[in-house]
């Protein structure tokens, strides 16, 4: 029983990170109908900037403190927000009216640029990462919760609540949903669609940076290709929940994290990565629009 609970806790903690990344995929898809394959590499950049800020530019990694970690987090999120803005502006905006396949190929190009540019810039070897103490925070009769897990839960739930608030209860969020339905009609309301699209990229990149920091703290290392697998899995999570659907991305992320952890725990950890793609195949066969997706699913 304790073992099952432990797997559930671990799965939810991993799933919350997937959910944060999946939100970026799904929001960008919502406004641009583009799968931004560079998103996983923005996640990597978030972790990498966290490493630089804590281990290279300051002594934070040697002497961790709450405020220090918060500052490292904010800095890395800000850098990724700017990078997300630049990626959209430079790589995707000139292709806004081109066939969708052009943007998709460009997204893969941007992804390679970040991965291999990253290897050049940061070096290909993994570096240890720690801005969070790797101790047990709670032990409930054998059920162990690390500091990292607690922080993952607190931060990701807080970020998802804030995002939910922005998307569904603010003027700019209403504009985002309007653009995601029909950008042309949205512009007739006086909405500057370019601004909304930039805003969406910044928002998604900030969440990806947060996810990168949490992921790097959970598996304490950073390297330039670390965004590859979590990025793909978060994409699966977004499709699972229904691409373009914000609550769907959260649900898809949590389900995927749980499934992965349970399979690794009860079957074999070598199947861990296969689970995500098995789930992708199943959802595409059974309900291609995703769990919470609209039934009139759009062509990708």
């Amino acid at each position, binding site marked *: 029983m304790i073992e099952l609970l432990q797997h559930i806790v671990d799965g939810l903690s991993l799933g919350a990170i997937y959910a944060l990344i999946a939100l970026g995929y799904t929001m960008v898809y919502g406004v641009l109908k583009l799968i931004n394959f560079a998103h996983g590499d923005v996640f990597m950049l978030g972790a990498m900037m966290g490493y630089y800020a804590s281990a290279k530019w300051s002594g934070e990694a040697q002497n961790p403190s709450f405020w220090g970690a918060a500052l490292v987090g904010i800095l890395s999120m800000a850098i990724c927000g700017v990078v997300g803005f630049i990626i959209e502006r430079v790589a995707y905006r000139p292709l806004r009216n081109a066939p969708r396949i052009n943007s998709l190929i460009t997204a893969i190009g941007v992804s390679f640029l970040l991965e291999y540019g990253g290897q050049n810039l940061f070096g290909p070897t993994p570096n240890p990462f720690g801005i969070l103490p790797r101790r047990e925070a709670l032990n409930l009769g054998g059920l162990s919760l690390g500091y990292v897990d607690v922080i993952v839960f607190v931060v990701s739930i807080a970020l998802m609540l804030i995002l939910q608030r922005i998307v569904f209860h603010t003027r700019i969020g209403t504009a985002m949903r309007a653009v995601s339905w029909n950008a042309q009609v949205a*512009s007739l*309301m006086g909405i500057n669609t370019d601004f909304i699209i930039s805003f969406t990229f910044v928002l998604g990149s900030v969440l990806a940076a947060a996810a990168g920091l949490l992921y790097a703290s959970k598996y304490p290392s950073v390297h330039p290709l670390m965004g590859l697998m979590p990025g793909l899995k978060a994409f699966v999570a977004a499709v699972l929940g229904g691409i373009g659907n914000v609550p769907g991305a959260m649900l898809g992320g949590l389900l995927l994290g749980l499934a992965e952890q349970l399979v690794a725990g009860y079957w074999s950890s070598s199947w861990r990565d296969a689970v995500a793609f098995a789930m992708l195949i199943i959802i595409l066969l059974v309900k291609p629009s995703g769990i919470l997706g609209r039934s009139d699913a759009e062509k990708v």
Partner: protein
Amino acid sequence: MSEASAPLLKIENLDVHYGAIHALRGASFSIAQGEIVSLIGANGAGKTTTLRAVSGMLKPSAGKITYRGEDLAGKKPHQLVAKGLCHAPEGRGVFPNLTVLENLHLGAFLRRDTAAIHEDLEKGFGLFPRLRERAKQLAGTLSGGEQQMLAIARALMARPTLLLLDEPSLGLAPQITEAIFQIIEDINRAGMTILLVEQNAHLALGIAHHAHVLETGSVVQSGTGRELLKSPEIRRAYLGE
């Protein structure tokens, strides 16, 4: 009087291409402040294209659009909304994934005068009481007629100087159409200038101060609404006589 009666909107020799299709061929007309101007014509004559060019959704290949003395070339739709030029697109164009209330608030997206926005919201609900009942519902759950009401109420929320209305009667029961045309006349009397595109030539000419007939992308006949209603060619071609 000649300065005061400078047109609010002036369209000169407008050409629009969709790829190889030449949709507007040198269309010209103008609208004075406070008028209702109707564009009538068959499907594909270029009525909607004209509205889309005026509101900045399409880039004309030649010609000039002047609004309040300002050349509109290169202006984006959202910049024109800020100048009081508001386009209620055909096919209703409400956001089905947003609630009725959210749709209405989007109409007032660029306004900051909260009190007046609330006033206009009440006014809209006064014109269309059905929308108040459904304020919290997703717009996609409304009937066609209700969506049309929402589209018009939303356009009014922008408090436009010039309202471009595309096919307000599309797919509506005659009773609702009549009510909507009554409202169009009322808001015009309250000072709003309206450019109306409408299939139903009878209705369109009935409320228009001036009207223009479009055929294959050019204006072929112009006059007051009443003149065109009496014109034998119009009666034959558009009024089914």
